[in-house]
């Protein structure tokens, strides 16, 4: 059976036999960097195309359908166009920060990719504080947005960036609390431990209603954290003319765009790991034959399909719900999501102590 774990092991042992350990480590790091950048590029192309097609079908339209088969090369053409465009820096802008901001945004998204297991044993870095690392680094992403908004020297950009700051700082709380409620059940921050604790059932099934509530709060909070509709106040095409990236063009704009989509992927990957068992196949109690069939599907396919399902749900949100006003946004967080998630965490802790989950 095909497995990515075997591939990484064979590369690792081959490098160590051919080179000394330090050189082998350096070569492995280079391979990882190339793989991550390549993955980013492919992910951006696929997700943008998916977004456009999903939005089109939800609005009874056709979407891109001219370039390539069924419009499949549309995003490739768009990327080519963006790469050839001039990356203009406005006159009044803070040149250094203006040019640094897109790289900050993309580097932070790359950093969060480190502890995510794409398949069984296929992970860049399985650190013991994996979940904490993810929630810490992903909240830094607001820096990139603030930097872009400030350096643009444009009132729309600054407004968008400030909104984004308020939004990410607020929603970080309920995202963190719903992550903690899974950590309470697992008793470990290490991502591989969290996944292996879901061997006999995913947390969303094992944790009863509190887990479902935690998942719903998590998906709302990460939708807000990734600045997507209905929480896209930072961009708000119709009122702020794209907010923090109004002044960006060409490849610098493309980097922001890419960072947004990679953040969506990462948020959904975290959701998958915490609530849907990461790369664990679907097992149902004592249906041995069914479980056996499910085991034959490679773990990477399980992971990717779960993540894309969650991404689809987020796109579904985006193309259904109207944008919130900024006071409604903060009301939703501080008056509804935070109290509910605190109460839910209490319930979850009680469940974990009493052992009411299976």
């Amino acid at each position, binding site marked *: 059976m095909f497995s990515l774990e075997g591939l990484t092991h064979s590369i690792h042992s081959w490098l160590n036999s051919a080179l000394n350990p330090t050189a082998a480590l350096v070569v492995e790091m280079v391979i990882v960097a190339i793989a991550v950048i390549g993955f980013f590029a492919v992910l951006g192309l696929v997700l943008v195309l998916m977004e456009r097609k999903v939005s089109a079908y*939800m609005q009874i339209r056709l979407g891109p359908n001219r370039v390539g088969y069924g419009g499949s090369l549309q995003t490739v053409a768009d990327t080519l166009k963006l790469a050839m465009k001039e990356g203009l820096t406005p006159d009044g802008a803070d040149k250094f920060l203006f040019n640094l901001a897109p790289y900050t945004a993309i580097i932070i998204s790359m950093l969060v990719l480190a502890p995510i297991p794409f398949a069984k044993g296929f992970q860049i870095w399985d650190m013991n504080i994996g979940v904490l690392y993810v929630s810490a680094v992903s909240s830094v992403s607001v820096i990139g947005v603030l930097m872009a908004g400030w350096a643009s020297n444009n009132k729309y950009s600054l407004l968008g960036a400030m909104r984004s700051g308020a939004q990410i700082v607020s929603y970080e709380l309920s995202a963190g609390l719903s992550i903690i409620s899974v950590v309470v059940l697992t008793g470990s921050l290490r991502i591989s431990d969290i996944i292996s604790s879901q061997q006999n059932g995913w947390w969303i099934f094992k944790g009863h209603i509190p887990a479902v509530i935690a998942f719903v709060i998590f998906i709302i909070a990460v939708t807000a954290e990734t600045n997507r509709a209905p929480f896209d106040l930072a961009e708000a095409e119709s009122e702020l003319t794209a907010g923090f990236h109004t002044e960006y063009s060409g490849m610098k704009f493309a980097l922001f765009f890419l960072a947004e989509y990679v953040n969506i992927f990462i948020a959904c990957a975290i959701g998958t790991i915490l609530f849907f068992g990461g790369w664990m196949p679907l097992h149902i109690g004592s249906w041995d034959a069914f479980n056996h069939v499910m085991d034959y599907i490679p773990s990477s396919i399980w992971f990717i399909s779960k993540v894309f399902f969650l991404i689809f749900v987020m796109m*579904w949100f985006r193309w259904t719900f109207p944008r919130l006003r900024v006071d409604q946004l903060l009301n939703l967080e501080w008056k509804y999501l935070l109290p509910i998630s605190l109460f839910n965490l209490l319930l979850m802790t009680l469940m974990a102590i009493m052992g009411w989950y299976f």
Partner: protein
Amino acid sequence: MLLKDYISDIYQATRSLLKGMRRTGYYFTHHKEIITQQYPDNKSEAKLPERFRGEVVMPHDTSNEHACTGCTACELACPNGTIKIITKFDVTPDGKKKKALDTFIYHLELCTMCNLCIEACPTDAIKMAQSFEHSVYDRSQLTKKLNAPGSKIREGVE
């Protein structure tokens, strides 16, 4: 806020959000509902809405007769001077003079397709056509004469 109101708020909000998602989910799975028409490709079978307003035309029947009495109601109704009506006097068989249409001039380049002239017409002599490919190389071709040469007013239209 009472706890009951708080919970009912959450319930109502979730319900209405799910209702919206059910609608978009329905559209996502039912591709037959798609209303996009791939225009230059389907030129022959393009379906325009019944009330689409392309340009003003004056229908003539088989014996080259129209229903315009030359009353100039459309000319008065037009907000931007698109219509100009030139009238003449016909002599009826019993020797009376009667006002009739000589030329109905329609400036397509000025028209905003507001439909006011069609609503103003007392005899339904003009209507909106479905044609929309109006581009020409010379502006003067957009000034049209709507009544066909040699046409008369239909018998019995007052």
